[in-house]
C-alpha cells in the first residue's frame, strides 16, 4: 500500500496532467460553442455530476450536461425555476451541492458555468473546476478576438476590391479573387476595372488593373489601397497610362519604409478593342485566340517601389472578336506541388490553349479549378484573375 503522502502526490500529478491536457484542448479551439462543449465534457463526470453553461445571465443555459441523461430535463427545469446557484464555494442546492463560476477573462465577463455534485463536493474539486473555467474563459476570449480580427480583415479586404464592375458593351469580363489562408489576414492581390473619360477621339474607354503587393497584412493593404485609388484618380484626370504608373511608383517610394514592392499590369481598352498595356514587373498578360493560340501581349518592365527614374512605355495590341485577354497574379503561376510549379514549362499557356472558345467566366473558372486541383496542399498565396473577351 502506498503511504498517504505518496498517494496524494500521485493524485496531484494526475490532476496536473488533466489540467495541462484540458488547457491544450481548449487552446486548440477557436469556436465558442466548441469551447463550452469541451469545458462541460472536461467537468462532467470527473469533477461534477452536472454542469450548465451560460453565455447570457438573463437567458437559459446554452448547454446542460448530466452524468445521467434521464436527469437532464429535471435539471433544466430546476435551473429555470431556481435560477443559477450562487457564486462562490458549493452550497446545498436542490438535492445536490452546487455553485456558479463566472467565465471571466481579461476583465470581461463572458458567461458562467454552473456545476453541481450529488453528495460531497471536496474543496479540491471546486478549485480545479475554477481553474478549468478560468482557462475556458481565456479560450473564449481568444476566440472572440480572433473572430473580430477576421471580420476586420474581411472588411479591409473588401474595401480593396471594387464595389462593382462596370458593364463593357461588346466585351465579356470575369474576375476571380481568392484570398490565401483562413481569412484572418489581408492579402496583397487586387484588381480593378473602371470607366474613363472619353479621349480626343470620343471613344468610350475603360481601364483595368491587376496587381500584387509584396507581403500580406495591414502594411501591404495600405499600399494596395494607395495603388487602387491612385489609378482611379489619375485615370479620371485622363493621365496617359505610362505616366500613371510612373506617378504611382513615386507615390510608393515616397512611403519610405512603409512602401512595398508592387507588380502591376495596368491597361486601357477602347470600345473598338484597342488595348494599351503597361506591365510593371507583373506576370505577362496573354491573349488566347479562338484557334487556341496563346501569345504574350506585353513586354516586361520594372516592378514598382525599387527606383524612381523609370520611363515606362506602353505596349499596344488589338483584341479581335473572340480573343481573350488573360491576366493573373503569381498565386496562379507559382501554385506549387512539391518541386513543381503550375507555370513551369508554359504550364499556364497549355492550360489556356484548352480553353479556346469558352466565355470569360468559363476561362476564369477553368484556371481557378486547375489551381485548386494542382496540389492536395492548400495554397499559401492569394490569387487574382482578370479575363476580358471580345464578343464575336
Amino acid at each position, binding site marked *: 500500500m502506498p503511504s498517504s503522502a505518496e498517494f496524494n502526490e500521485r493524485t496531484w500529478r494526475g490532476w496536473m496532467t488533466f489540467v495541462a491536457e484540458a488547457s491544450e484542448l481548449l487552446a486548440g479551439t477557436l469556436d465558442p460553442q466548441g469551447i463550452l462543449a469541451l469545458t462541460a465534457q472536461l467537468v462532467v463526470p470527473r469533477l461534477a455530476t452536472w454542469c450548465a453553461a451560460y453565455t447570457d445571465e438573463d437567458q437559459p443555459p446554452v448547454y446542460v450536461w448530466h452524468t445521467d441523461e434521464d436527469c437532464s430535463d429535471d435539471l433544466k427545469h430546476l435551473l429555470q425555476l431556481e435560477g443559477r446557484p450562487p457564486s462562490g464555494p458549493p452550497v446545498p442546492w436542490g438535492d445536490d451541492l452546487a455553485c456558479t463560476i463566472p467565465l471571466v477573462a481579461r476583465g470581461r465577463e463572458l458567461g458562467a458555468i454552473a456545476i453541481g455534485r450529488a453528495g460531497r463536493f471536496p474543496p479540491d474539486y471546486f478549485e480545479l473546476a475554477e481553474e478549468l473555467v478560468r482557462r475556458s474563459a481565456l479560450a473564449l476570449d481568444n476566440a472572440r478576438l480572433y473572430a473580430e480580427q477576421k471580420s476586420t480583415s474581411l472588411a479591409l479586404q473588401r474595401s480593396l476590391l471594387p464595389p462593382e464592375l462596370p458593364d463593357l458593351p461588346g466585351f465579356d469580363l470575369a474576375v476571380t479573387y481568392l484570398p490565401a489562408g483562413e481569412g484572418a489576414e489581408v492579402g496583397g492581390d487586387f484588381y480593378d476595372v473602371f470607366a474613363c473619360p472619353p479621349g480626343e477621339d470620343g471613344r468610350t474607354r475603360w481601364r483595368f488593373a491587376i496587381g500584387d503587393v509584396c507581403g500580406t497584412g495591414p502594411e501591404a493593404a495600405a499600399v494596395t489601397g494607395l495603388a487602387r485609388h491612385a489609378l482611379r484618380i489619375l485615370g479620371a484626370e485622363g493621365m496617359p497610362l505610362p505616366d500613371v504608373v510612373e506617378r504611382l511608383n513615386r507615390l510608393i517610394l515616397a512611403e519610405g519604409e512603409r512602401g512595398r514592392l508592387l507588380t502591376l499590369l495596368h491597361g486601357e481598352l477602347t470600345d473598338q478593342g484597342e488595348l494599351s498595356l503597361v506591365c510593371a514587373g507583373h506576370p505577362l498578360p496573354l491573349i488566347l485566340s479562338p484557334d487556341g493560340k496563346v501569345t504574350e501581349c506585353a513586354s516586361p518592365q520594372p516592378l514598382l517601389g*525599387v527606383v524612381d527614374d523609370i520611363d515606362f512605355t506602353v505596349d499596344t495590341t488589338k483584341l479581335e472578336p473572340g480573343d481573350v485577354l488573360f491576366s493573373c497574379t503569381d498565386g496562379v503561376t507559382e501554385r506549387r506541388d512539391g518541386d513543381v510549379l503550375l507555370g513551369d514549362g508554359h504550364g499556364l499557356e497549355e492550360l489556356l490553349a484548352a480553353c479556346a472558345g469558352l466565355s470569360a467566366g468559363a476561362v476564369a473558372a477553368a484556371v481557378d479549378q486547375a489551381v485548386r486541383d494542382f496540389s492536395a496542399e492548400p495554397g499559401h498565396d492569394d490569387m487574382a484573375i482578370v479575363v476580358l473577351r471580345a464578343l464575336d
Partner: protein
Amino acid sequence: MRLALDTRRDEDRTLVTARGSIDLHSSESLQTHLIGLLDEGDRQIVVDLAAVDFCDSSGLNVLVRAYKHARVTDAALVVTGAQGRVENVLRTTGLDKYLIREL
C-alpha cells in the same frame, strides 16, 4: 528545399553562394545575412543564384532591400548565375536591369 548560404571574400569582393529555395520561410535569413555583410563594411557583394531553384516575391523583396541598402551605404550588390525559374522571375519583374550587372 531549404536555403544554404556560403560566403567567401576575395580581395574587395564578397561572393555569397545560395543553394535551395528563397521563399517566405528562408528569405529572412538571406536578408539578415546580406544586410549584415553591408553593415560590416563589405562594399562589393555578388550573390550567386546558380543553385537556387525558386525565388518568390518575398525573395525578390529581400534582393531589392539589399540592393537599396547597398546603394545608400555606397556599396554595390549584384546577382549572378540565375537560371530557369529564377532567371524568368528576374526578367518578368524587370529586376534583371538592376541586379544583373558587372561589378
